[in-house]
């Protein structure tokens, strides 16, 4: 379970002064559910997810991930989280197996457990053909599978996906969305960010729309449709975001 409590992140920019990348964001993600964070580029999605994964530290507020505070116990949080984004690249000079094993060891798995886990994941993701191939020789699809294997190796109860299908071809993107669904079906808590409406419609149990670092609205797809009297998610998104976008432009 993830419980964000007033998460905020401010950066200092030499030209623009203080930037509120995330501003007092609170939400809850339940196990066995997918929470979709929907927002335009620069809305604060990546910063929010990076804070949940403890890659960045919040300026104010906190979040509890699997019972651990992200500020107080970042290492315990990371041990319970699988984090995947298009920015999380592979070590090119390691083989797919070495790469996954490296992260298994960093997650504290002993060698017999690691071997069993790696064998199981490689078989399930159909990765045995390229397990001894160096990562710089893999195709995009193989790379994504290796990344997925990396997030799964320690069997974390929480999965965080930051725009995981960004820039991927349709076949590779389908592998990822299938994997996200599988995580939910296995009872994991899943949060993922995207600006692709169709993905949200297909996958999410709860949708949070974020703009200028603020969580503007939250609910299931049906709840949002009722609230804004629109069927199309894109129209709902525009309705929610436009007033804030206009105000931001005016400032």
């Amino acid at each position, binding site marked *: 379970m993830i419980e964000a409590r007033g998460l905020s992140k401010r950066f200092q920019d030499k030209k623009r002064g203080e930037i509120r990348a995330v501003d007092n964001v609170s939400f809850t993600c339940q196990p066995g559910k997918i929470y979709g964070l929907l927002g335009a580029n620069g809305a604060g999605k990546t910063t929010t997810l990076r804070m949940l994964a403890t890659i960045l530290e919040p300026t104010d507020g906190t979040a509890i991930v699997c019972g651990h505070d992200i500020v107080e116990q970042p290492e315990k949080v990371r041990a319970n989280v699988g984090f995947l984004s298009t920015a999380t690249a592979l070590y090119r000079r390691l083989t797919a197996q070495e790469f996954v094993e490296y992260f298994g060891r*960093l997650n504290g798995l002993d060698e017999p457990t690691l071997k069993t886990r790696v064998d199981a994941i490689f078989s399930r993701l159909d990765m045995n053909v390229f397990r001894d191939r160096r990562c710089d020789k893999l195709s995009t699809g193989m790379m994504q599978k290796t990344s997925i294997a990396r997030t799964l190796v320690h069997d974390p109860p929480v999965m965080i996906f930051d725009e995981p299908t960004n820039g991927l071809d349709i076949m590779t993107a389908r592998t990822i969305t299938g994997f996200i669904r599988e995580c939910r079906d296995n009872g994991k808590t899943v949060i993922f960010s995207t600006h692709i409406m169709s993905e949200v419609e297909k996958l999410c149990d709860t949708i949070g729309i974020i703009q200028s670092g603020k969580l503007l609205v939250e609910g299931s797809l049906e709840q949002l449709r009722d609230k804004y009297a629109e069927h199309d998610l894109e129209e709902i998104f525009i309705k929610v975001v436009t007033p804030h976008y206009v105000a931001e432009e005016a400032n």
Partner: protein
Amino acid sequence: MSMRNVGIVYRKELTEAIRDRRTVISTILVPLLLFPVLSVGFGSLAVALVGKAKEETPKVMLRGGEDSPAVVEGLRKLDKIDIVSETPDWKDQIINKEIRAAVEVPPGFQTDVAQQKSDTVNIYNYEGELKSEFATDKIEKYMKDYRDKVVKERLAAKNLPDTVLKPFEVKRENVAPPEKVSGAAFGGIIGYMVILLCMTGAMYPAMDLTAGEKERGTMETILSSPISRMHLVLGKFFLVLTAALGTAALSVLSMGVSFSVLGHYTGQTASGRAAAAGFLLKLGPKTVISVFLMALPVAVLFSATLMTIALFAKTYKEAQSYLTPMTFVVIIPAIAAMLPGVELTPKLSLIPILNVSLLCKELVTGTYHWNLIAIIFSSTCVYAAAALFLAVKMFQRESVLFRS
């Protein structure tokens, strides 16, 4: 502190480093091949060129000497010297290397010598030009021998012994052991090489493991794992340190073998190069251990500093532009230690790099000033610890890790 995690990161970084062609070249191949190429390669070339120059029979122009037939005859009989007749453009001919030198015998030289009047024989040459120097040496030797012969004849004519002109001898004798002599001559180079190669060995991995990781997008991947940033930095740091010390060790080994081969090849046992060979081979385990023990904190200092600086960069190229000026920061004190007369003092013991450089010079001569060694070792350890602390702090700064 979990050394298990540090070990996991270290082993992974080592695996990647061994598979990286650039790291293997800069850390293993360059130090192994640099000295053989520089010493044996260039040394052999120099020996071959000098040998060839000595083989040549140089043309020397004779100016004057018409009224000094004995001197001219002697010059013409000189082995491997071709005496040619005078032409007005003799200077141009020397400059254009058509002739190698010119010797000017003054008018009435032989008569003047017989009448005990003083004269000057001028030899004109192309200074610094090898073949011209060889020709000049031969002519000069002939003229000096001729002068000595005349002096002997004059003394004999007056029944005076040779000791009239040379009442006593002045002799110089070295009492220092050979290793101290060669150490004083080459000790500075050892310190310089160890320090410089520690730096160059650390440079590439320091950039690859920080800026390179950012550029390849793996920084976010590793930061999402449960490893603490301190363990991550230490794992990376130990790899950079291994590269620094490995490069320095391989270089010293390669230097020793190269000089030894060169000394054997040239057969000049008394020459500087061969002395260096003997000196390196005579370095006892105590000296080698001492030098590397002192190099250890320096290598720590370099590894941590280079990693910290390179971490600021977003790309490998940017890191290169930050670290290249660092080479000068290191070279200047290292060279200063090689200057004649610069010796270790308590004040200089506190200046990083310069202190270890000077100490290495002393260690290889077998001199151990324990109080200064203690100051140097502890001060360098403090600098190294500060640099490592800074590196860990930098890895905890988001503005550095995610600089955009």
